[in-house]
């Protein structure tokens, strides 16, 4: 029995699949079209996930699907993406409403390949990988993306290349006329013994009214090191559902930070790391600062499949006003994954009586020689610390800001790029510069 959401947006999507969508995709090869057809079946059967789906229990999509979203044709006129990070020396790649704005993008250094949809799909090695890393027949949103995505990008780091300059991928959403749903995806391949950094930032111009469905598949080959950063600085007109699936092979390292510091109305992150090789290292950082009626949902999975791997996960959140935070962290330790060390921590501060947090740290362990732990807390600003600062002549408002900054500094200070740290601090301070802080 399916309990999904089958509303008018769903209906119009189902109708447009064969009528409008497939004819546009005639250049694609049969394997991909078959993948799309299978995914379409899943999506049409399950609909948009409702709160009766355990994975969506605390995140009600009905709230954003009240608007009628439609698939819009790729926009041709590009707004200028002004966003940049001061002091960051990086190669810029700009996506506007999911479409590559080539004239605003930089040339990449040697050892790096970045391909747009046509070129990426023309290469069978990429089109075959597409949809083979993120596999889940129960995930309706993933299936939706596979069936309907229009743009597909590949970022390929060649073997034994050390790319010192970070790549800065800008996701910008701008005015689209009517509420639109934008499915697009990215494939990142970090070949053996390579090291590289990918920074992704999300922005919007305030008039976008967009539901973005973004799927990124990431492959970290043997002994490769990959750092990724996701920073959401969008305005409230953005609703984002991001699914990232990472597969890691022997002795590889993957680090990510996922920060929701903007005003996006709705963010859902599915972040799955499958550790398919032994002796891997995975560090996942996250922060979410929400106010107004924002809803930020982080679902993470760390799946230890082979022995001797380490994983660390630290997510911190601050909820103000009537905002809602959700954290669900799963750690799996499979039968073969002996000598695993897996740690997970989620700390939250509620600054308002109308704010809500749902935290669900989850461990599923099938091997015996492991060290696993998780911790989760929900609390407030420490009254004693606040008092201490006030006795030093610091105003209450200033003191509260200091303590909140310190609370998330634990996460943000682990970002290895100085310019990025400063950018994050700016976003945080802008966020805290509201009245919501003192209501508590």
């Amino acid at each position, binding site marked *: 029995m399916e309990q999904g959401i089958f509303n008018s947006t769903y209906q119009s999507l189902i109708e447009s699949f064969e009528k409008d969508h497939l004819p546009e995709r005639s250049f694609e090869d049969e394997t991909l079209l078959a993948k799309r057809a299978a995914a379409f079946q899943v999506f049409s059967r399950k609909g948009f996930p409702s709160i009766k789906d355990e994975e969506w229990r605390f995140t009600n999509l009905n709230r954003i699907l009240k608007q009628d979203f439609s698939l819009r044709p790729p926009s041709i006129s590009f707004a200028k993406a002004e966003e940049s990070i001061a002091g960051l020396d990086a190669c810029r790649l700009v996506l506007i409403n999911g479409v590559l704005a080539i004239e605003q993008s930089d040339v990449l250094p040697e050892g790096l390949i970045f391909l747009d949809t046509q070129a990426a799909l023309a290469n069978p090695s990429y089109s075959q990988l597409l949809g083979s890393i993120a596999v889940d027949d129960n995930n309706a949103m993933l299936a939706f993306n596979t069936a309907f995505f229009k743009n597909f990008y590949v970022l390929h780091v060649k073997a034994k290349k050390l790319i010192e300059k970070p790549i800065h991928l800008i996701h910008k959403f701008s005015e689209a006329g009517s509420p639109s749903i934008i499915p697009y995806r990215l494939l990142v391949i970090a070949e053996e013994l390579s090291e590289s950094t990918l920074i992704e930032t999300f922005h919007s111009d305030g008039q976008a009214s967009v539901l973005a469905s973004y799927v990124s598949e990431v492959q970290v080959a043997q002994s490769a090191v990959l750092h990724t950063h996701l920073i959401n600085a969008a305005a409230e007109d953005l609703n984002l559902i991001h699914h990232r699936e990472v597969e890691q092979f022997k002795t590889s390292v993957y680090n990510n930070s996922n920060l929701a510091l903007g005003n996006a109305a709705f963010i859902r992150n599915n972040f799955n790391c499958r550790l398919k090789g032994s002796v891997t290292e995975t560090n996942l950082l996250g922060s979410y600062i929400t106010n107004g009626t924002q809803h930020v949902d982080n679902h993470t999975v760390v799946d230890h499949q082979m022995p001797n791997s380490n994983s660390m996960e630290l997510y911190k959140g601050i909820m103000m006003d009537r905002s809602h935070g959700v954290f669900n962290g799963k750690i799996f330790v499979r039968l073969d994954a002996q000598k695993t060390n897996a740690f997970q921590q989620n700390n939250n501060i509620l600054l308002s009586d109308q704010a809500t947090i749902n935290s669900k740290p989850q461990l*599923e362990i099938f091997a015996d020689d492991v060290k696993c732990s*998780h911790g989760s807390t929900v609390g407030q600003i420490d009254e004693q610390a606040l008092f201490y600062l006030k006795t030093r002549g610091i105003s209450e408002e200033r003191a509260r800001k200091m303590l909140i900054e310190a609370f998330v500094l634990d996460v943000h200070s682990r970002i290895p790029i100085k310019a990025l740290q400063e950018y994050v601090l700016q976003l945080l301070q802008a966020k805290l510069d509201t009245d919501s802080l003192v209501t508590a």
Partner: protein
Amino acid sequence: MSKDEHLLSTLATNEYDYGFTTNIEMELAPKGLNEDTIRYISEKKNEPEWMLEWRLKAFKHFLQMSMPDWQNFPMPEIDFQGISYFAAPKKNQLKSLDEVDPELLDTFNKLGIPLEEQKLLSGVAVDAVFDSVSVATTFREKLAEQGIIFCSFGEAVQNHPELVKKYLGTVVPQTDNVFAALNAAVFSDGSFAYIPKGVRCPMELSTYFRINSQNTGQFERTLLVADEGSYVSYLEGCTAPMRDENQLHAAVVELIALDNAEIKYSTVQNWYPGDKEGKGGIYNFVTKRGICKGKNSKISWTQVETGSAITWKYPSVILKGDNSVGEFYSVALTRNKQLADTGTKMIHLGKNTRSRIISKGISAGNSHNSYRGQVSIHASAPGSRNFTQCDSLLIGDRCGAHTFPYIENRNSSSVIEHEATTSKIAEDQIFYLNQRGIDTEKAVALIVNGYASEVLNKLPMEFAVEARKLLAVSLDGSVG
């Protein structure tokens, strides 16, 4: 066979001490579940009309409900028509213990529940439930002197209908879940206790459950009301014979604590767990819930779960009164092919309510042990506090430990803390004990006892001793 394998196989084949059956003349209801069964039970128990109607209403709900699908184990097929819903030793209406069938007394003696002795020693007041009915309640007069009512559920329906009517189904409604609905429809007996205002119950109250007959299910119901300012400590123990087929135990326990009252409820559950192939054993699907209805009240659950093929229960507390306290202490040990999906719910509704959860899971053999808990602090509960610790210990590489905590906070002055760890027994700890001349087997037992002591210490004396023994027996021969 290596030493480890040998030890592990001893662990697996460890005898279940309570697997005997008692040959006693029984009165059995015909198999099957329909309105007639319910009328039959109700008539047998000579129940008033309102009770029958309540049962029938529950049965209607039951028919509309479907089996849950969220649990962390494959749901066994349960043939509700293949179960006999009423089994009682013949010879009813006992005036005193002397009239109890000697064979039955003997059974309870074997189980270590000497009803006769209990009469003499100032120890524990026992209500013994054999299959479907309560067979004996001790110390009744002595308790009655203080106004305490402790009797079988059937007697309570007859003698104290106003209390039963007032509280029955107020904590676990008939519609709560499919097994609670089934229980409400066909429950055969159980215990009832009422502690009047300001009375501190002078002794531990205790129920002992025994499933004896084949093809029966046990559906008992416990209702415990602690009036203002009273205190009671309640113990529950269970055993069953070894049988090849699975038997269903679907009980409901309701606790009600009014202003300033305190209830301490302890369970040592040792139902037959099935053999090492996972054949037979009890399905222990129990709904237990308490409500701290009054201000400053307290409910504390302590459980030691070592038996049952599948244990599926979440003793919970609804913290409605301001400043009320809920506690949950649990040790769940699974081995062979046992499955346990257990935990608690703490629902904070009143101001400044506090809850504490300590859960210790131990998995050995091919078993799976899950902790599933919910801590929910509502907007109406400012100043509330929760602390949760759920640890898992893994013995052997074929078992699993799982935790599913749900944490929810809806106000800005409450604090929730949750921590969980999973590990095996550290080799250096065993080495240290070996060095001091303690063999590995004993070392494991020592470490496990230490690991579980935080919970075991919460048990009343008599039970703590039994629980320690139970853990030691169950763990015999397991090496980390």
